[in-house]
């Protein structure tokens, strides 16, 4: 495989992980536009472990992910009080706090605004990235078939009623928020050790917004939606190279058009069941 396709498929794998990291809290009705912050934590923690403590790659990736997940749980708990747009703003503020943290603190270890260089000794390959993608896809597959997955769906649809029928909404929400943070952290670690360069500016609000776009475009009712959304979002800008400087404008118009044409995203539960053409079945699913 040429290095162009290698880079493209690596980026796609990382984007799929990032999309899943937004999908996880969104599956219980929590919108996060701060996942670039969790990604940054995973990236910087794992890179500091391999560069400064000379730890092997695998434990460093895990440590970065777990650290991001713990921070996610710590943020998720107070954030339980708030919903919707307020939660989105808390996570946005959190992402910006993390970005400014790595811009201004620990700069002797991470290079701060000048960028973190020299992560060169243990590069991540395509197989690492897609191995992680496969692992989390299997996890989400079994989750979606389990009772736990059903309770998550119920919490997403109506958390008050879910609580009334005895679902522990607190555990579910904090857990799914933490799982999302963990996935974002692992994606960050993979990113750091694939591109071998980090800078705080990369982890800005737009990075978080892109992750949300993957999920909403793909469809947020099944975990295949984020996978599809992230894949399209990685490949589409590449296939639009002929538009040159106007790629962004086209991309924006594409989002607007797609939201009008398919407000629930490309993949819905109906399409996955392949019975959307049956008369009378339409609309009572998903």
């Amino acid at each position: 495989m040429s290095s162009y396709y290698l880079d493209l498929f690596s980026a796609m794998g990382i984007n799929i992980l990032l999309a899943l990291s937004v999908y996880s809290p969104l599956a219980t009705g929590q919108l996060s536009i701060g996942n670039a912050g969790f990604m940054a934590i995973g990236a910087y923690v794992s890179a500091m472990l391999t560069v400064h403590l000379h730890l092997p790659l695998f434990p460093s990736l895990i440590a970065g992910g777990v650290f991001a997940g713990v921070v996610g749980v710590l943020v998720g708990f107070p954030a339980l009080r708030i919903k919707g747009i307020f939660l989105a703003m808390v996570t946005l503020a959190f992402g910006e706090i993390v970005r400014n943290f790595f811009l201004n603190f620990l700069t002797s270890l991470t290079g701060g605004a000048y960028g973190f260089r020299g992560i060169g000794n243990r590069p991540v390959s395509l197989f690492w990235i897609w191995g992680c993608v496969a692992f989390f896809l299997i996890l989400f597959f079994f989750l979606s078939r389990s009772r736990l997955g059903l309770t998550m769906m119920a919490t997403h649809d109506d958390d008050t009623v879910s609580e009334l029928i005895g679902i522990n909404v607190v555990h579910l929400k904090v857990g799914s928020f933490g799982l999302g943070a963990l996935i974002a952290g692992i994606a960050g670690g993979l990113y750091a050790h694939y591109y071998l360069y980090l800078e705080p500016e990369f982890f800005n609000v737009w990075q978080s917004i892109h992750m949300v776009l993957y999920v909403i475009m793909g469809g947020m009712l099944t975990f295949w939606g984020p996978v599809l959304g992230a894949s399209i979002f990685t490949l589409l800008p590449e296939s639009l190279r002929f538009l040159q400087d106007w790629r962004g404008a086209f991309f924006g118009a594409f989002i607007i058009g797609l939201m009008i044409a398919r407000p629930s995203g490309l993949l819905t539960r109906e399409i996955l069941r392949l019975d959307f053409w049956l008369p009378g079945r339409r609309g009572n699913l998903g």
Partner: protein
Amino acid sequence: MFIQQLFNGIMLGSTYALIAIAFTLLMGVLNMLNFAIGEVFMLGAIIGLTLVKLGLPIYPALILAVIIAGLVSLVIERFSFRPLRQAPPLVPLLSTIGFSILFQNTAENLWGSERDQFPQWMEPIDFQMGPLLISSTQIIIFATAVLLMVGLDLFIQRTRIGRGIRSVAENIETASILGVDSNRIIAITFFVTGALAGASGILFGLSFSIVSPFMGIEPGIKGIAAMIVGGMGNLRGAIVGGMFIGITEVFSVAYLGAPAKDFAVYGALFLALIIRPQGILGMIQAEKERI
């Protein structure tokens, strides 16, 4: 020093307050977050500057730019709101993010990504007033901001259209049954918020000498922050929130150094939301207090 910083904070805060009012008006009336307001803000400044450079006299040029910003906002209503009224609230939000990307990229292609500024002859004249160093633009900007805020408050509380806006905010179906043309009211609301955003973009461009395709990103997010800190859907709360964010920003730069700026602003937003999610003046649950 302290008074000067407080003054500067209020100046910056009045720009944020104007953007926050634009956000809060849409939030209160339609329960919709229009993310592209930051880009309408940017377009107001860029179009105003272009018209001035084309040789139009300053006041007609800026008023025309404000009207164009309002029309741009109407376009957003047409594509991001009207077809998506039945969709979950996230969908219009993402659609307006699409407009953000579209406008940023278009502006970059048409005007270039370089920073520009309003011509030199419009640069401020500084003068001393007691312990305060005040520039002429600061006075004009503050006066315009106050005028716009008071004018909008009167418009919503006293006029017939304002009453229509309040009734649609209360309940869109009931308002329609009672003969309010809700489509017209919604369009007017979008136009007003776009014009407000455009006007504050021009004020921002004048006072900080920055006009660029990316100038709307940060004020946009800080405007949302100001709206939330002040209590969503509350005009006066948006003003308080804007002042709060502006003063926090100026004070953290003055006493903690420039790098601390965003740290302090977003830290304050984070804590404000965790401790008092309903905002300083906010009453989320009380429907009748929405505007």
